[in-house]
């Protein structure tokens, strides 16, 4: 598969059907952790890191282990367990070998276990029958989309601190309305990726 389709997959996962803003995946951490730019970027890098790793591990398992011997329905359990184990493994190795990186990502790694976005990416890769490289690129695109949405939303969250919505709208509701406006902005990219690279 040449370079062009890879770019299309990645850009469409990042912009056109952005995981958080269009497909509603990973909203809990998105709303919770994006109060400051530092924690937002830390979280997003952790998400990209674990997404790539999870895809790299789960794709071979399904293709070579599950599907040949017809136990594809075990997919869900296997994926969830591998992600949880992976997160634990990564946390230990990072703490041991790369303390600097750990100080940035370490706090968010346990959150990955219950993060819908990561499981979703992995499941989508299998459902859309992507090849190994395509699914890697797809999760990279999804991660970048998550990073883009998180970083922009952390800017808005800081702006929201100066806004004074009505009493019952403070906190989550006003954040949700801001995300609604943000996802409106992402609608503009429909069609751009296909024509630009297609």
């Amino acid at each position, binding site marked *: 598969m040449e370079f062009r389709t890879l770019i299309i997959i990645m850009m469409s996962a990042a912009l056109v059907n952005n995981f958080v803003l269009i497909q509603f995946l990973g909203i809990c951490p998105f709303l919770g952790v994006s109060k400051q730019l530092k924690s937002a970027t830390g979280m997003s890098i952790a998400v990209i890191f674990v997404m790539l790793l999870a895809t790299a591990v789960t794709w071979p398992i399904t293709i070579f282990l599950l599907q040949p011997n017809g136990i594809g329905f075990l997919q869900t359990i296997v994926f969830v367990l591998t992600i949880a184990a992976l997160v634990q493994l990564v946390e230990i190795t990072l703490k041991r070998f790369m303390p600097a990186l750990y100080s940035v990502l370490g706090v968010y790694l346990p959150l990955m276990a219950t993060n819908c976005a990561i499981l979703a990416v992995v499941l989508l890769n299998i459902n859309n029958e992507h090849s190994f490289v395509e699914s890697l690129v797809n999760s990279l695109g999804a991660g970048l989309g998550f990073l883009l949405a998180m970083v922009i939303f952390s800017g808005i969250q800081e702006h929201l601190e100066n806004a*004074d919505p009505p009493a019952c709208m403070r906190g989550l509701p006003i954040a949700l309305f801001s995300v609604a406006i943000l996802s409106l902005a992402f609608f503009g990219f429909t069609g751009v990726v296909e024509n630009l690279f297609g």
Partner: protein
Amino acid sequence: MTRMIVSFAPHIRERVTTSRIMLDVIIALCPAFIAAVLIFGPRAALVTGVCVASCVFFEWAYQKLLKKTITVGDFSAVITGMLLAFNLPVGIPLWQAIFGSGVAIILVKQLFGGIGKNFANPAITARIVMFISFPAAMATWAPIPVDAISSATPLELIQRGDLAALPGMWDMFIGTRMGSLGETSALALLIGGIYLLARRVITWHIPVAFIGTVFVLTALLGIQPTFQLFAGGLLLGAIFMATDYPTSPQTRTGRIIFGIGCGVLTVIIRAWGAYPEGVSFAILFMNVLVPFINKLTMTKPLGGIKKKP
């Protein structure tokens, strides 16, 4: 002995007030309004009137309901109404215009705390909401649907590729072409823009950066640069929408970056996007980036030493 007022310095203030500025913007919008009525007939005035009335009503009702100080007097709701109307085709059903005004005033502006507190431009966001919610109504440009060819905007014609049916440059400049109410007459918009610049309500940075980038990029891509300037909502967006105070950066360099960003996104969407018109999406996306632009282009205080954080 009369009681003296003891208040903090400075004790003299410039005469300009917020409502004075907003009045200037309304005056600047009048030429475009007159052009719209001349080109599209009396229904243009009806649509604008309905939009302005509903915007003012929604703002008044919201503030009354929540017992806030009524700020309808600063004409900002009137401007949002006019700008929203200028972004709509003349044949738009009135209930959709009222819904758009509701979204613009309540969802985008008042919920965040009224004037100055919103991060997205109310008129632009409402236009996009309507553009996505009522695709059919937002795409019929002539009041009575004349044959399909002539009732398409220049940008749609370019996208379809039949360049023969494009109106001449003079029509584009005067505005006798298909398009939303306020965006067609380039002449009227330029008059308004010059008035705003003369009254120092807006600075040249955003419009010039925006239009300049679009001109340069379309020239590079070779899709009729001069034509693109007058087509679509570029002039209306660059002069009136992108320069909206709370949703654009406050520093000079910030405004230039904002303008260039809007220009780049507009050309990307116009050249390759699914929608023919990219100005509104470009402005909304750049509005969302304004907190970062403000942070990046913080002015360097005279003598301020950059301490390592």
